[in-house]
């Protein structure tokens, strides 16, 4: 089936739904690298006009990616709920955008719609939306998750405290974690990307974070972001694992490249639930994704990177996660070239994840070979807060000395609390007040009680 638009006497033809989605995508280096992007702004608009007239149900009538036996595609079709889809079943993609912006699409209606939508549908409608639209609709979606605290409540924003160290040195990890706590970050998770990949190091890292949590009685959860297979072995050895982490992508082939399939993720989730480390019904999984991940593995099957990113969210929601974040600017300028592309992609990812029912966060970040800087991150952070982002990532001084890229600083969390008036998770907020990190009016303070409590951390005491 082909799709076409006539503009000024020129007929623009798109040979497949896959091509239509790719050419309707905003300009970005990854789609250009893959040879999928529109030739210019007019062809891009021709694709968007054709896409606006496409019935939403077209995404149910055909397999857009068209790869026989792909388990992500099979999952998407198996989980589609026709009853939930009914309210929008008669709409075109363009009419769906208008409906999403209307008062009819309120918090309740959007929650009821989640399993009626496929990733391809939300990716398609996002391509017709401006940044303002992406913010307006996402801000109407509430996704609340729980472990030792409650994340995603309206009017709040959480942070992941990311105390990475180039050699996973315990003292180095501890120093960065404490730096973040003193500035009030870590309610989403205290989560370390390990530089090493052994089970021993994984267990050492989660044990270190567990000791810190218990000593300071922090109402939060921790995570070592090693491979799911390592997490399974560590759990088998009795390690204190709060959350199981995995990087995921939107095609089976890309996930194979990450060394996983859906069955392995199910196994890991069951193992984490069986540890009973949080109240019943808790969310125990943490996923990261990023536009360009499938293309970099040569596993994109002619699909644009933003639609594939939304397909990764179909994988994520199967496992009822506590946290999901796009690492938007981390993947590199060959996928998102500059601050403008990173800003738009971060908001698309947040929007698509939220519509599909995920507790979306974003790693507001960039690498040194991208044409971006901390001012672009300010813009993305402020816009994401307006959109109701569940959490962002912070590192000391915005400089991740292990992954060699720039994210946000814990200072940015202070800015969000004080200027944008978004406090952290309520349980964590109470703890911060008790520790003197925050006063009752939400102002950041010197953390006198926390400094006192840090005497009880052996590694700090031992250094005296």
């Amino acid at each position, binding site marked *: 089936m082909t799709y076409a638009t006539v503009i000024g006497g020129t007929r623009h033809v798109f040979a497949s739904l896959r091509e239509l989605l790719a050419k309707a995508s905003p300009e970005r280096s990854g789609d*250009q*690298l893959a040879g999928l992007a529109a030739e210019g702004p007019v062809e891009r608009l021709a694709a968007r006009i054709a896409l606006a007239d496409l019935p939403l149900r077209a995404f149910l009538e055909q397999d857009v990616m068209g790869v026989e036996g792909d388990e992500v595609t099979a999952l998407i079709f198996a989980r589609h709920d026709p009853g939930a889809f009914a309210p929008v079943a008669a709409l075109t993609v363009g009419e769906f955008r208008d409906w999403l912006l209307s008062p009819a699409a309120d918090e309740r209606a959007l929650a009821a719609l989640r399993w009626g939508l496929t990733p391809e549908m939300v990716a398609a409608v996002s391509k017709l939306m401006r940044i303002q639209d992406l913010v307006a609709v996402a801000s109407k979606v509430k996704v609340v998750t729980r472990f030792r605290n409650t994340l995603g409540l309206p009017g709040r924003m959480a942070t992941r405290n990311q*105390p990475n*160290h*180039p050699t996973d*040195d315990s*003292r*180095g990890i501890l*120093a*960065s974690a*404490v*730096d973040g706590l003193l500035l009030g970050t870590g309610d989403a998770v205290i989560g370390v*990307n*390990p*530089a090493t990949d052994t089970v021993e190091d994984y267990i050492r890292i989660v044990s270190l974070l567990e000791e810190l949590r218990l000593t300071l009685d922090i109402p939060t959860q921790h995570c070592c*972001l090693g*491979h799911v297979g390592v997490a399974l072995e560590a759990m088998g050895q009795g390690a204190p694992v709060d959350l199981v982490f995995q*990087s995921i992508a939107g095609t089976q082939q890309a996930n194979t490249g*990450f060394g996983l399939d859906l069955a392995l993720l199910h196994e890991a989730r069951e193992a984490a639930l069986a540890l009973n480390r949080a109240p019943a019904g808790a969310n125990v999984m943490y996923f*990261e*994704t990023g536009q360009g*991940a499938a293309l970099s593995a040569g596993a994109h099957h002619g699909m644009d990177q933003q639609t594939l990113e939304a397909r990764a969210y179909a994988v994520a929601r199967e496992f009822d996660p506590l946290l999901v974040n796009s*690492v938007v600017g*981390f*993947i*590199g*300028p*060959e*996928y998102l070239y500059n601050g403008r592309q990173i800003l738009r992609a971060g908001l698309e990812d947040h929007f698509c994840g939220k519509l599909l029912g995920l507790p979306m966060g974003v790693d507001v970040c960039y*690498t*040194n*070979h*991208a044409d971006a800087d*901390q001012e672009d991150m300010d813009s993305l952070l402020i816009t994401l807060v307006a959109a109701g982002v569940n959490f962002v990532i912070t*590192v*000391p*001084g915005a*400089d991740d*000395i*292990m*992954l*060699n*890229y*720039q994210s946000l*600083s814990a*200072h940015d969390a*202070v*800015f969000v*609390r*004080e*200027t944008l008036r978004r406090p952290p998770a309520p349980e964590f907020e109470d703890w911060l007040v008790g520790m003197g990190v925050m006063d009752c009016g939400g102002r*950041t303070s*010197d953390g*006198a009680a926390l*400094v006192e409590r*840090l*005497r009880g951390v052996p590694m*700090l005491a031992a*250094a*005296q």
Partner: protein
Amino acid sequence: MSPRALSERLRAMTEARVMLGRAGGGMPTRAVLDFALDHARAREAVWSEMDLPALRAALAGYPLAEVVSAAGDRETHVRRPDLGRQLAAGTRLALPPSDLVIVVADGLSAMAVDAHAAQVVHALQALRETAAPVVLARQARVALGDQIAARAGARAVVVLIGERPGLSAADSLGAYVTWAPEPGLPDSRRNCLSNIRSGGLDPQEAAHRIAALLAQMAREGTSGVGLKREPPLPGQSARALPGGAER
């Protein structure tokens, strides 16, 4: 412990930018400017070009050739890693027969190449009986070395390449060693030494480790994940997502 003592203790425990203090919700002026300067240096390193006259002079004692990738210029190189892995159309390469080719590639920091590549090459050549040919490659990714080695008929290739700069080090050199190189090899077939710079892995020590790797590869007839008792690969992204490395 006093806040000041805690602050000093935490700073002593890590190179990370901990305990910067704050100005309201923001970082203090000095911390902001320090960060901006480090970023400016890293950006300059990414967009720098190799100092060819200096490298030619430093490496004049070995058979020397120069190539450019199909990326042609810096911006294309950053945007199109696929082109950085191919030789420019019409490239002619005349090298003497050798078991090993050493490729000096700008990657994502020509500054790193200018600073450390010649030292590593000298140290590596000193460990050999005959000098290996050296190829200076501009707008180059790691896999360009496979094409060069295949053309030269070499059994192994060492690619010394500028790594993606971080804020703390913009002049860090990586060494990728591949046995039986041919176009289309996966990255899992390479062994990598990372962080060759002052304050990191010393160039002499790096050369010794590269020579040891080459000897092991010759014995086992392979490289990369297939190599026995493989040392850890600090250069590989610890985040499973790709992270736009020099590869």
